[in-house]
Every structure is written in structure tokens, then in C-alpha cells.
């Protein structure tokens, strides 16, 4: 018996040695995905996590949209400056009363399986979102009906003028045009069919998603043969993959290393200001945060530069309003200087001393956890004791919904039109107004701006909104982070976008 066992052990040792010898054969690291490569090559992209599913109408995960950006199309799409440009629709007209929008679709567009994409598909896609109350149904709040008057024409009828309709219909791929057959077969969750530059070829759960070039694509043909997305949640490992050549592109870089990486040229790391913002919200349903002086005291007590340094290693722009500088809606207003005596005075006026404030942050977004430490030490200087609660995101959202918090820190990502974020967060009927801010003037302005068709007047209304929100310290805005992405020397033609959309259609891979 024991002899047999030893022989078995000997055999396993031999096997192990063979295996180790086999993998240290001296050629170094092998590059995945090359086996299917032709002239253009397959680009390996490492993203920070796995998409929950690939149905663009049902997912809300950024990881999903990193992939789907390359698979689907929308009627219009944001260009580099986030202005809406033709995509599936080549032109559109608006009726005199602003209630009827007529879109003309591009000639000869097909889905990647070769079937034609017509006005009926647009009607089907939008009605699916509206009727099934899917994630982005709120973007169609003012839509009365959608009709296909002929195969190339879609007419959208509204209940009220909607100046940001284009942003709603094309801001991101969550409102993409899908194929009815693909939805009805249920395949859309793992093998969606779109009309974009690439098509999903294979989804290996937990491991990778492979895309191949869509030879039926209506735009300029992509140079790459395909893309392979892998899910690497540890940023150190992702960077190692990029350096070792296993991966050609990643956005999952260790934040503390990004400043140094920006100086190097292999890998190329670029960072641009994003349209995201991060903020602190104080619960106005609780005392003493219902007192504007207390909220303003907190705003004066914060040193945004120090918070940015700690949370983003300086890769962010401090901002006291929501809208970043590169947006058409940017409004320069920064009344809060870091001023401890002013803060203390305001707290005295409010009759508050020895305040203990609970601050809810989430491990889902590590920068909130880091920033909270700095916020706590800064508020300690004005006599506010901060008790930080770090929760996982599911629990965090629960407590936010239940209103069981004094304050929280969070970000709002991929913002294009102010209606979307201001209304949800600061209108007294807003769906994300969990801190219970209510100012009738702001409500009125938000309602007005929502349907204001004169762009200049609309911008002015949002400036008034921005100013009032800052003065009331409804949210205490902190910063707009940069978006940093890195790619190997072989990659050319890639541009980092401020809205974090990952587009590989113009990218080439040298080999």
C-alpha cells in the first residue's frame, strides 16, 4: 500500500516538474488572444470588474458600458466635447411648438448579423424601455409617443418641450437601439446584437468577453480584428499585465502610481478632467443640518485641495459647483474659502457646539473612504466630531434610502445635461434628493429650465440654480476627478474621453 502511494507521489512530482518546466520555457509571457489575430490584431483590454449582463437597457454597471460602447449605437452620440452629433440618425427637425421631433435614419444600416436596422427597431427599443419601466425610463419622461412613419423616419411626440432630448436619446449606450429577435430569444444578456463597430463573439463568464470586428458596420471599418475584455479587479495586477504585455489597455491603474506613470511613455498614461463630481451631502431632515448656517460652516471648514490630494493624489480639480470647467454649462462660483474662524462663527450663530456628525462612505468607492479621513480631521478643527461609517454599497444605498444618516459622500458620474443631475438631486420631488433639500425658488427654476428652449435663457436659469444650491449648501461639492487610462506603445489612435466612454473603433495595434 505504502509503496503504491510513494509511486503515486513520484508520478505527481514528475508531472509537476514537467508542468513547471513547460511554463518556464524561456519565451516569457504569452499574449492571450493572438491565436485569432489577423492583420489588425486583437486588442486586450483589462477592465476592473465583470459586467453584470450585456443587455444595455437593463444593466447599470459601468463595466457593462465599457464593452457595450463598442457594440451598440444610439440615434445621436456625444463627440469629444460632449455635443450631440449624428450617429444612426443623420438629421433631425423640431416642430414650431417644440413638441414633435422628426429623425431621419442613416441609409443602409444593418445589425451585425446582417439584418436591416429600421425605424421599427428604434420604436421597439424606446418602447421597451418605457413599457417595461427599465433603468432609463426616466429619460423618456416627456415622451408621449414614438412612431415610425416610414422605414427611415422616426417621429417622437412630447408632452412638453424637452431641450435636452438629444442628450437623453444619445448620452450613453443605455438607450441603444436593440434588435427585437435578440431580446425575445433572451440572448441579449450574454450575446447582444448591435449595429456598432464590433460584435460580441464569445462571453466566458468570470473570465473574458471577446468582440470581433463588425464587417457590416456603417461607419469607417475598425482596423482591429477584435477586442478581448478581461476582468482584473486588482489595480496592481492590471498594471503588471499592462507592463508585461498581456494587456494593451486598462483603466484600472493604482491611483497612487498615476502621477508617476503620467511622466513615462511606456505604458502611455493619459488623464483628462472628467464630467463626474464628488460631494458631501448633509441630511436636512435631521437637526442641526436643517440650519443653513451649520451647512455653510461645514463648507467653510473644508480644505478642498487637501481632500483632493488625499483622495485622488492631486488628479482632480476642486470645484464648488457640480459642473466641470470644460462644460458649456460651467459657472464660476466659489464663495467658500478654507476659513476656520468663519466656520466657528457660523456654528456659534446656529447655537451649535460639540456636534457629533455621522459620515457614511462606501468601500465600493475607496476615494470616499480616504476623503472621509481628511474631512474628519478638518471638521475636528471647528469642533465637529466626525464618526465615519464605511459600508458596502448595498447597505449604503439601503441607509441612504431610509434616510438614516447625518451625512454621506458620493459621486455622480458621466454628466452631460444639468437637468439630469440637478433635478434628481435638488428638486424637492427629485428621485435622488435623499438629503431632503427643498427650496421653492430652486424648484421653480428647475421646472422652468427643463422646458426652456432658448439655450441662452436656459444657461442663465441653471446659473441661478447653481448659485442657490451652493449658497444653501444643499450639496457641498468637492471636486471633479480626472479620468486616467493607460495603454501600451503598440496602441495608437486612442483618446481618453471626459465622459469615460471607451471607444476602440479608431484604434490600431502595431505588432
Amino acid at each position, binding site marked *: 500500500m*505504502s*509503496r503504491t502511494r510513494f509511486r503515486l*507521489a513520484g508520478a*505527481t512530482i514528475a508531472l*509537476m516538474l514537467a*508542468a*513547471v518546466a*513547460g*511554463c*518556464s520555457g524561456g519565451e*516569457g*509571457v*504569452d499574449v*492571450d488572444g493572438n491565436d485569432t489575430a489577423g492583420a489588425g490584431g486583437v486588442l486586450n483590454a483589462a477592465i476592473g*470588474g*465583470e459586467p*453584470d*449582463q450585456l443587455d444595455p437597457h*437593463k444593466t*447599470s*454597471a459601468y463595466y457593462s458600458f465599457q464593452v457595450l460602447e463598442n457594440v451598440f449605437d444610439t440615434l445621436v452620440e456625444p463627440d469629444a466635447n460632449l455635443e450631440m452629433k449624428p450617429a444612426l440618425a443623420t438629421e433631425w427637425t423640431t416642430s414650431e411648438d417644440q413638441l414633435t421631433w422628426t429623425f431621419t435614419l442613416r441609409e443602409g444600416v444593418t445589425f451585425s448579423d446582417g439584418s436591416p436596422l429600421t425605424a421599427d427597431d428604434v420604436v421597439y427599443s424606446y418602447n421597451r424601455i418605457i413599457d*417595461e*419601466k*427599465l*433603468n*432609463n*425610463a*426616466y429619460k423618456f419622461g416627456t415622451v408621449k409617443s414614438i412612431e415610425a412613419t416610414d422605414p427611415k423616419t422616426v417621429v417622437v411626440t412630447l408632452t412638453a418641450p424637452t431641450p435636452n432630448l438629444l442628450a437623453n436619446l444619445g448620452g450613453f449606450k443605455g438607450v441603444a437601439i436593440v434588435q427585437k429577435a435578440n431580446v425575445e430569444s433572451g440572448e441579449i*444578456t*450574454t450575446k447582444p446584437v448591435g449595429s456598432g463597430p464590433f460584435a460580441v463573439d464569445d462571453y*466566458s*463568464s*468570470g*473570465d473574458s468577453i471577446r468582440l470581433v470586428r463588425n464587417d457590416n458596420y456603417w461607419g469607417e471599418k475598425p482596423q482591429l480584428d477584435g477586442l478581448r475584455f*478581461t*476582468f*482584473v*479587479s*486588482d489595480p*496592481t*495586477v492590471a498594471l*503588471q*499585465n499592462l*507592463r*508585461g504585455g*498581456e494587456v494593451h489597455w486598462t483603466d484600472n491603474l493604482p491611483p497612487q502610481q498615476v502621477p508617476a506613470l503620467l511622466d513615462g511613455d511606456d505604458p502611455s498614461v493619459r488623464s483628462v478632467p472628467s464630467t463626474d463630481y464628488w460631494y458631501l451631502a448633509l441630511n436636512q431632515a435631521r437637526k442641526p443640518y436643517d440650519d443653513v448656517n451649520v451647512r455653510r460652516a461645514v463648507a467653510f471648514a473644508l480644505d478642498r485641495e487637501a481632500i483632493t490630494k488625499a483622495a485622488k493624489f492631486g488628479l482632480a480639480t476642486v470645484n464648488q459647483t457640480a459642473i466641470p470647467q470644460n462644460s458649456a454649462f460651467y459657472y464660476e462660483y466659489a464663495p467658500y474659502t478654507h476659513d476656520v474662524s468663519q466656520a466657528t462663527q457660523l456654528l456659534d450663530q446656529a447655537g451649535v457646539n460639540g456636534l457629533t456628525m455621522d459620515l457614511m462612505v462606501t468601500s*465600493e468607492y475607496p476615494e470616499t473612504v480616504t476623503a472621509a479621513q481628511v474631512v474628519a480631521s478638518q471638521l475636528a478643527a471647528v469642533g465637529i466630531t466626525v464618526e465615519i461609517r464605511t459600508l*458596502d*454599497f*448595498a*447597505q449604503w*444605498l*439601503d*441607509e441612504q*434610502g431610509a434616510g438614516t444618516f447625518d451625512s454621506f459622500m*458620493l459621486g*455622480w*458620474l458621466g454628466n452631460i445635461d444639468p437637468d439630469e443631475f440637478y433635478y434628481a438631486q435638488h428638486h424637492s420631488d427629485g*428621485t*435622488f434628493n435623499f438629503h431632503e433639500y427643498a427650496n421653492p425658488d430652486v424648484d421653480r427654476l428647475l421646472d422652468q429650465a427643463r422646458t426652456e428652449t432658448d439655450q441662452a435663457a436656459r444657461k442663465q436659469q441653471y446659473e441661478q440654480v447653481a448659485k442657490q444650491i451652493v449658497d444653501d449648501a444643499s450639496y457641498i461639492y468637492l471636486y471633479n476627478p480626472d479620468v486616467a487610462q493607460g495603454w501600451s506603445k503598440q496602441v495608437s489612435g486612442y483618446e481618453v474621453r471626459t465622459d469615460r466612454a471607451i471607444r476602440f473603433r479608431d484604434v490600431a495595434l502595431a505588432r
Partner: protein
Amino acid sequence: MARFVIRRLLQSAVVLLGVTLVVFLLLQLVPGDPVRVALGTRFDPQTYEALRARAGLDQPLAVQYFDYLRRALTGDLGVSFRSGRPVTAIVLERLPATLSLAVTAVVFALVVAVPLGIVSAIRSGSLVDHAARVFSQFGVSVPDFWMGIMGILLFSGVLGWLPPSGYVALTDDPGRWASHVALPAVTVGLVTASILTRFIRSSMLEVLSEDYVRTAEAKGLRTRVVVSRHVLRNALIPVVTVVAVQLASLLGGVIVIEVLFAWPGIGRLTYDAVAARDYPVLQGAVLLVAALFLLVNLLVDILYARLDPRITVR
């Protein structure tokens, strides 16, 4: 023998039923709402209600549970909240990655721990013994994720021998599979090896002090013969149990290591399911792991009877 197996299988069914109930109830206690997580920050009450109804979460708990059980009996473990795909398929497609990692790790651990444990017991107090004890202390006390990161930095970063992460199926390309499995398997295997070395050493020492060993030595048998014929056979019987328990727990997925090395196994699936509060997937994964655990234990009991004639199964 057959009766024994049948009885054990019936017992296992009862245990599994208990597992489903406990897991189901525990999940209700965990704070966090899967529908809110699925919607993220873009929260809208209408969408929320629609999604809740689609996931069946608007039903009373008892209805949800018995619905689940009824379908589980036919092999249908429900549908994932996150992806809308059948849980049975999701869980089964993750099994090969975890199986291959667990088995490789245990084989590695045995290759290291068996010789080390034996020598360390026979030469108790020697340099080798001290080295083995330092090694096993190191293995059990240093966190595996740290060892993993160090391994990546050394073998993939500095030396460039191995890929830092990723997975290739054994059936697709055994060579590339081996190069990808090496780092995670060694990381996990070192911990297991540390535990096994200590266990084998103490088990050997115990047997070495038995009367029949002294008798064998008194007969004039050479040490090597005494050890291989008398000591090992007896000392390794309890080791089988420890190895089986280790293997079974690795089959549950080594969560941190699978996440670190982007290894598409049960552990990573469980991690993602917890974060998303994807109850059906979590239940499915736990059920599968429990079933594997019971199966491994049953096999060990049968194996015991073969290894040790004093034990019979009835």
C-alpha cells in the same frame, strides 16, 4: 457497503435541505437590497417596483422559499438578479476553474508537506525540523493575498516567467493553463502545505512513540523500513481526513486569491454575488459547495475502510 452509501446520501439530502433554509434565512438578515444595487445611483421608484416584481422579491418570504425549493428539486436553481441567466448554468461553468485550482494546490501542498513532515518528525530537533517549523509558521501566519501580490511582483514583474493573472482552460491549452495556474496554486498551496506539514509531523511523532514501533526497532529492522512499513501507514490515516477537509474547503473557492488573480471560479462568483446581493447565485454557489463537501467526506469515509482494516463501513 451499498447500504452505507445510500444511507449517507439520504443524510446528505437532509443536510442540503438544511443548508438551503439557513442560507435563505441568513440572506434575509443581511442588510442591502439587490434591486437598489442593480439600479445604482440612478434611482427611480417606478423602475424599482418593476425590477422588484420581475425578480419575484415582492412575494412573501415563505412563497419565495418554497418556490425556490420546488424548482431546485428539478435542478433549476433560479435566475440571477444581476444577469438574468440561469443560476445552475452560471455555477456549473465556474466549477472547472475552481476544481483545477484546488486540485493543483493540494497536489503541490502534498508534494511539499509529506517529505517535509516526515523528515521533520524523524529528525526531530534537527536543522531541517527547525526550518520546516519556520516554514509552516510563515505559511499559516502570512496573509495569502500578500503572498500572491509578492509572487506576482517577483515571478511576473521582475523575472517575467509567469503571467500575472488570467485563466486558460486545461482542456483548451494545457501548457498555458499550467503557466496561469502556477502562481495562484502555489500561493494557496503554501498555506495548505504549512497546515499539512505541522499535522504530518505531529501525527508521525505520535506513531513513533507507539509500542509496536519500538518492537519493530527491537527486531532489528532498519529505520527506513520501520518508517515506511509501520509508521507511515498509520500516521497518514488521519492525514487523509485533513487533506480531504482542505480540498473540500478549497473547492468552495479561495475567494481572495481568485479575485486577486482574476481566476473565474466559484470564489470570485461568490464575491461578486455578495457585492450585488445576488441571492439566487449566492444560494446556488453555497449549495454546490455544500454538496461537494458532503461528497468529499463520503469518499473519505469509504477510503478509510480501505486504508485501515480496523474500520468497516456499515
